[in-house]
């Protein structure tokens, strides 16, 4: 009964979405290049990639969480925390720069782990748990920074934010793509990756299949924490300092990028490649819009419409299946 279809790919699920996204992105890119003066310039393309990078990393983390049927709105806050911890350590201590990086990341992993613990052990819905932790973390960041901007970052970090490969591809974007590739491979080739989707399809199904659900929840949110930690370092490099409000507003963009890329908020679906395209589309709309001289508020509305459209499509797809 089985035909010779040899190439099963998880991405088949999202193929359609990805194809559409590529068409739209390429279309926008060409339009903006032809009709505006500055869009297709080295400076702007580099800038575009920088704009993508941090949101892109958060969106990858979000993809992991959304595919388990969860959602994390503490990503921006943890990113801000990592950024602030890094800046304070580098300003106020003599620790080796690598040690400060590692501490910033560890703090973020712990924050993510606590999210996982609250969500699994106390059965708090992910949205509420992470809303709570985001608020707490924002408070903590403001206390440790005395609500002031912290500068005095290590030169290496500052350079990281400015340097570009061949004067075109920013280091930040390289980090983003590297993170995306690693997580892509994890989702595609590992048991951990499969388990994410199975949990997203139903926690009971996963439990009965012998998946250690508790361990999975802890590691999923801790892994997201790790990525936020990295994003925090990138944020420090990009802003060249740490703001007490750093990372604010990133979560919704990251969630939007994942959803536009085909991740389903009801779980069980989501790919890194889709999210990558979702991120690019979000950023390109804004960037090109500005080049076209559109009002930024109009662009906000456009992004909003896009999100609603993507989610509606997702819901319609699900409905047909049931």
């Amino acid at each position, binding site marked *: *009964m*089985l*035909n010779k*279809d*040899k190439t*099963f*790919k*998880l991405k*088949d*699920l999202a193929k359609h979405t990805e194809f559409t996204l590529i068409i739209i992105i390429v279309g926008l890119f060409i339009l903006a290049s032809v009709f505006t003066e500055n869009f297709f310039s080295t400076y702007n393309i580099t800038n575009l990639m920088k704009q993508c990078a941090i949101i892109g990393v958060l969106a990858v983390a979000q993809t992991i969480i959304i595919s388990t049927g969860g959602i994390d709105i503490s990503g921006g806050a943890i990113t801000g925390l990592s950024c602030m911890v890094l800046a304070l350590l580098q300003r106020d201590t003599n620790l080796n720069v690598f040690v400060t990086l590692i501490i910033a990341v560890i703090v973020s992993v712990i924050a993510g782990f606590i999210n996982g613990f609250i969500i699994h052990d106390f059965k708090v819905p992910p949205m509420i748990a992470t809303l709570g932790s985001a608020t707490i973390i924002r408070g903590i960041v403001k206390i440790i920074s005395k609500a002031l901007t912290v500068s005095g970052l290590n030169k290496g970090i500052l350079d990281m934010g400015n340097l570009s490969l061949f004067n075109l591809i920013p280091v930040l974007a390289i980090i983003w793509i590297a993170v995306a590739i690693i997580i892509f491979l994890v989702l*595609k*080739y*590992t*048991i*951990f990756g*499969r*388990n994410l*989707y*199975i949990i*997203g*399809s*139903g926690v*009971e*199904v996963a*439990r*009965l*299949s*012998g*998946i*250690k659900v508790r361990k999975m929840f802890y590691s999923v949110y801790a892994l997201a924490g790790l990525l936020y930690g990295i994003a925090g370092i990138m944020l420090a490099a990009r802003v060249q300092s740490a703001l007490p409000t750093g990372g604010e507003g990133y979560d919704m963009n990251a969630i939007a990028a994942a959803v536009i890329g085909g991740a*389903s908020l009801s*779980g*069980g*679906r989501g790919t890194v490649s889709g999210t990558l395209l979702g991120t690019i589309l979000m950023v390109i709309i804004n960037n090109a819009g500005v080049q076209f001289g559109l009002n930024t508020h109009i662009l906000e509305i456009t992004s909003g419409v896009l999100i609603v459209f993507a989610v509606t499509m997702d819901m319609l797809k699900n409905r047909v*299946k*049931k």
Partner: protein
Amino acid sequence: MEDLILKVENVSKYYPGVTALNNVSFTIKKGEVRALVGENGAGKSTLIKCIMGVERPDTGHVSMNYNGEWVINTDALEAQRHGVFANYQNVNIADELSVAENYFLGNQPRNAFGIIDWKKMNEESSKILHKFSMDIDPREKINRLPLAMQAMVTISKIALNDNIKLVIFDEPTALLENEKTKILFDFIKSLKEQGVSVIYISHRLEEIMDICDSVTVLKDGTYVDTQPIENVSKDILISMMVGREMSDIYNIRHFKPGKELLRVENFSDDDNFRDINFQVHEGEIVGFVGLVGAGRSEVMRALCGLSHKTGDVYIREAKTDIKNPADAMEKGISFLTEDRRKDGLALQLPISININMNSYKMISSNGVISLSKEIERAKEFCKKVNVKTPNISQLVGNLSGGNQQKVVIAKLLCLNPDILIFDEPTVGVDVGAKEEIYKIMEDLTSQGKGIILISSYLPEVMGLSDRLIVMAGGQVTGDFSREEVTKLREEDVLLCASHEAAV
């Protein structure tokens, strides 16, 4: 025509791969209490849904007499407006609300300012509770009540309506003890006196003989007959329900049981079952029968480490403690759960992931999966159980019930377990797929595997089992060997399963 309340005319209903109802016709009179009987899968629930307007028949129609006009209900709300109320088998309540709020759900009394009149609501509720001899506070949160009380709340809720024409009870006594059953019967009698018609569904035939005026029998989705209750006896009813050629599909090869695989001793949990003992040998199918709530599935869930229990488990004569499903699998026990859509399958994911779900460890090293083996194994096991699909990347949610069940079985087989627990493996599965599932079971026992089969479908469990264990009220009330099973009649088993002493 004047004294009729309901007409079911040539109703057929098809689901993918299954004919749930096939050209069913009958009528019900005003003030008549009509029993609707048939085995599981006979089409009773589907018929109820058609009467309530929840499902549309594919052919034919169900119409009701509403003040002299014949109308067709297109949804449950319309049915209720026309005076049709149903009490479903699964207790339908708003868990977090009080008894009174459940009574007046969506219909709360309001005062002059449009604000809910709590006093009136609680008073009215108290009256109803009193009428049904339930000694509880209407302000009590409903999920604090025992299940039987919750069931009584949903039953008594019907009495709140003043335009009742037809009431449907689907297995109302499954959760009730004798005393409450009597209250229910009094309610039914009072409904009848008011000229209200009742459709009463129950597996407990003695109840039907007690309370009903007439009985309609369904079998495998087709209408068998309607008779006044005086004309039938329990035996006649059963033969009408069962009366089919004992077809060959249950006729699998049986093997001489080998060594003991599993022994369960003095198994109890706090409330669902107690003092359960049984063994499973190589090449043996051990069947479990019982009514809803008899505790069969609970025993198996506890065995797989899904719930708390006391007692001992021996696997191949060695005492063991199973902590969780992963542990059970490692020790050679695989569990096909009753609700495959909820517990067994990741519906949004492809067949290949579903089949490998339990056993990714076997095709990976250091957590990295071999994608080629994943595909290979999915194909191999799809072929083994004959899943009908164009390709293995098909989403499981798009398969028919029978094929979904085969995917679950393939998933279990991947682990090569010694003992398989099949909980209602053929529910919602068409006849062809059923036969294939039985063949798979035969194949497994021929390899010396042990199978525990839970089924409410008597011909199936009696035809397949080498040993038959009957449970009622959480206890074993019958234990039969293969020779005894072949001589047993279904009514003997039914009697055993409704054993009063156990309750």
